[in-house]
């Protein structure tokens, strides 16, 4: 009984995590320029990470694997924003001005 509850709960977390990954992807496509797209990427970075790793932790139970998953979570949360900052700062330093009005003409700069 208890196992089934945990199983269902973990699948709910995993599925909603997948949905948030999808939302991040949709956002990265829909938003108009580089700086706004980084915001969509951080949805995938945070919410989806929490949900997917939370779901896997429930599957792993109280074991050494869960400790490793917590470590993965901490490292993702520490390195994710560092990478975002490096990307955004590189864009800024190479002369891309963050526009206060959204424009859709600079799709070529997103990579």
């Amino acid at each position: 009984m208890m196992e089934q509850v945990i199983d269902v709960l973990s699948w709910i977390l995993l599925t909603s995590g997948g949905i948030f990954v999808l939302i991040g992807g949709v956002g990265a496509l829909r938003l108009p320029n580089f700086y706004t797209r980084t915001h969509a990427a951080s949805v995938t970075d945070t919410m989806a990470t929490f949900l997917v790793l939370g779901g896997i932790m429930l599957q792993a139970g109280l074991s050494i694997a869960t400790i490793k998953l917590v470590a993965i979570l901490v490292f993702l949360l520490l390195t994710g924003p560092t990478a975002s900052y490096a990307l955004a700062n590189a864009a800024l330093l190479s002369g891309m001005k963050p526009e206060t009005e959204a424009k859709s003409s600079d799709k070529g700069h997103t990579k």
Partner: protein
Amino acid sequence: MQENQRASKPNIRVILIWLVILAAVWLLWSGLYKPLVIGLGAASCLLTVLVAHRIGFFNESTSIHVLPRMPRYWFQLFIDIIKSNIDVTRIILDPKLPISPTEVEIEAAPKGPIGQAILGNSITLSPGTVTIDVFEGRLRIHCLTKEGAEELIACDINQRTAELTEK
């Protein structure tokens, strides 16, 4: 023991605490307790401390006393992240895409480099706000909406980070 002053001399106690933390982390992650593996682990812990010492990690006064305050900070940050995730998700899924990109510049309350790095990363971590530049204690932040920018200025993340690292 001179742990209270911002001494340029590294502190033996801090180094020992870090060694214990590293050893505990290593033991938890490896899960193998054979002599050879434990020997390799001990060697890598010592090497890590040596390298950290050489890059001046132990000269920073804000390195060890911050740790007990981390859980509370992380919890508050977690709540913030969930809230702003819901906001950004709504914006992305809205057919009209109601964005109003705004740039704000704030004065970082924490004065040390570690505090400013934590502040910048915390702001980047919550969706809707990205730190794009840190220069001389001022953070340049790009926000997805005007409301997000106002919320960022109104919320106390700046003060919380200062409390985390400065005392």
